[in-house]
């Protein structure tokens, strides 16, 4: 996260780290149920097999296991059948964990938005992750506040790409607070009126971030995928 700040244990209990040996942390991910998490499809390029992945939850400092930490092997990876690598469209996948997590104050699922429920442009939301901070990769979870940007305004930043309805933009014109490499798959969350937090985006792509900051970040638009996500969970829960 560029321009963010170090977070504190328990502030984002749905944040998880998607890890694969020997590299360790590869991508972010988000807990949405006791056995289910979300991340982006592009994290699996070149590492499609579930058994090389594990999910680490309840952790703040990647280098210091916490008493609240829980680790689960990934049982299956469900990549969206329309994921398009060239234009990074439909960039989403569902992770089925080997076993249920224990819900604690430090490990808790995030809510999914209702169908058709989009965050309003200019609403402030939060991004978190252990990705690049501009000059290094941090050990401690970083957080940043970003503003939702309309699709038309977002398209004007990206000449070479098309912003589709499967994408959501957030950040700032100067890119002052933005996600970066290593944050992919992590959450963009907004607080609802009732105090609960909902997941509206998964960090997906953006312009180059560690050498020159420019333009907003682009996120997988969860509202577009809510029905698809719930369907994958239903089909696998009932072996269909």
């Amino acid at each position, binding site marked *: 996260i560029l321009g963010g700040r170090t977070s504190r244990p328990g502030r984002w209990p749905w944040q998880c780290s998607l890890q694969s040996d020997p590299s360790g942390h590869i991508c972010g991910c988000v807990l949405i149920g006791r056995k289910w998490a979300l991340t982006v499809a592009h994290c699996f390029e070149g590492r499609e097999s579930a058994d090389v992945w594990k999910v680490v939850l309840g952790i703040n400092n990647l280098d210091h296991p916490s008493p609240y930490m829980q680790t689960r092997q990934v049982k299956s990876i469900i990549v969206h059948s329309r994921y398009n690598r060239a234009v990074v469209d439909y960039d989403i996948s569902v992770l089925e964990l080997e076993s249920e997590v224990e819900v604690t*104050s430090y490990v808790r699922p995030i809510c999914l938005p209702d169908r058709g429920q989009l965050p309003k442009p200019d609403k402030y939301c939060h991004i978190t992750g252990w990705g690049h901070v501009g000059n290094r990769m941090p050990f401690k979870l970083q957080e940043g506040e970003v503003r939702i940007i309309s699709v038309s305004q977002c398209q004007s930043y990206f000449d070479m790409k098309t912003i589709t309805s499967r994408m959501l933009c957030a950040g700032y014109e100067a890119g002052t607070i933005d996600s970066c490499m290593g944050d992919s798959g992590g959450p963009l969350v907004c607080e609802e009126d009732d105090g609960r937090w909902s997941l509206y985006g998964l960090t997906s792509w953006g312009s180059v971030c560690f050498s020159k900051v420019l333009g907003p970040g682009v996120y997988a638009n969860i509202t577009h995928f809510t029905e698809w996500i719930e369907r994958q969970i239903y089909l696998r829960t*009932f072996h269909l």
Partner: protein
Amino acid sequence: CISTSCSTSCHGNTSCDLRNTASNCTGGCEPISLEICMNLPYNFTKFPNYLGHQSQKETSVSWESSLFPALVQTNCYKYLMFFACTVLVPMCDPLTQHRVPPCRSLCRNSKERCETVLGIVGLQWPEDTDCAQFPEEGQANSTCLMPDQDVKECSPSHFKCGSGRCVLSSKRCDGHTDCDDDSDEDACGCVERGLWECPGDRSCIRHNMICDGFPDCNQQEDEVNCSACSSHELECNNHECVHRSFWCDGRKHCKDSSDEWNCVSLFDGGKVLVYKSGLEYQVCADGWSSNLSSITCTQMGLGSSLSTQAVEAESLSVIRRRWLHVHPDWSQHDTSALQGLLGKRGQSCPSHTSVSLQCPKHDCGRRPAARMVKR
């Protein structure tokens, strides 16, 4: 490997790169996958490239891979895109497995003609492309690349204007004229571009998106009239036809399993409604158990049931009194979805009561550990 020179294993050679397997050699030539350089007179490249990038993936997200295609639009130099690609994805000679650099004159011409254009918008020519590092054309015992007359000036990410200029393909038919001869806004009909036009909003989609189970047109016209199912069949989301008796029977028959989607819902304050074989049924409360309530709430993506009631089944105009009954041996199949645990369709229910549930949303989105701590 692309060429036979890659070793099939590391023979215990510790310096051998862990990834050096038969399918993913490092050190050898690799096919070009960078979209903006897919129309070069060569097909193999080798990393690191002349900007210090270690892989095509790193190059594809680099600053330079956006800068050069944008710079090409200014028409500052005819062979700029070709030069950019010889630097981004250097040619790899399949025989020697060596990189072949661009000639110094190609680099110098590109830089001299285009550097000033970058200066206008406050940008610099990429630091790492110092032309002195490249050999002169015809220099003894070194080869270098020069464009021949049929090299493509525009990349696959560009549209070539009638005037020969290149503009980014996202500008093609975007309603603004970008070519100096306005040709980017000519022949913008879907058909002229080999695309299919959505009748409603006249937007264009690729032909392979028609009847693929994903609505792409705003009014979803691309997903209608995609199959001809007979009267005793129902249409899957992918447009296959499946006999209605298989619909919502708890087992998948459509390849995309859409015959088992949305089989159970709650209506009228919690009454369980099951859609089976193309018809809607109430569930007779006789033989119901709390486990079945949990299964029902779970399959609708909700939390475990709060309450289960057997409610008097008044005559509902919406649904003619059609009943489903719990299979006596349902508990032997309790990993199945609810619709697979019900059967014995009929017009009667001894208790004359139907099942009604309260299923709360999952507890989610709260962060108790983040509460304010008085100081």
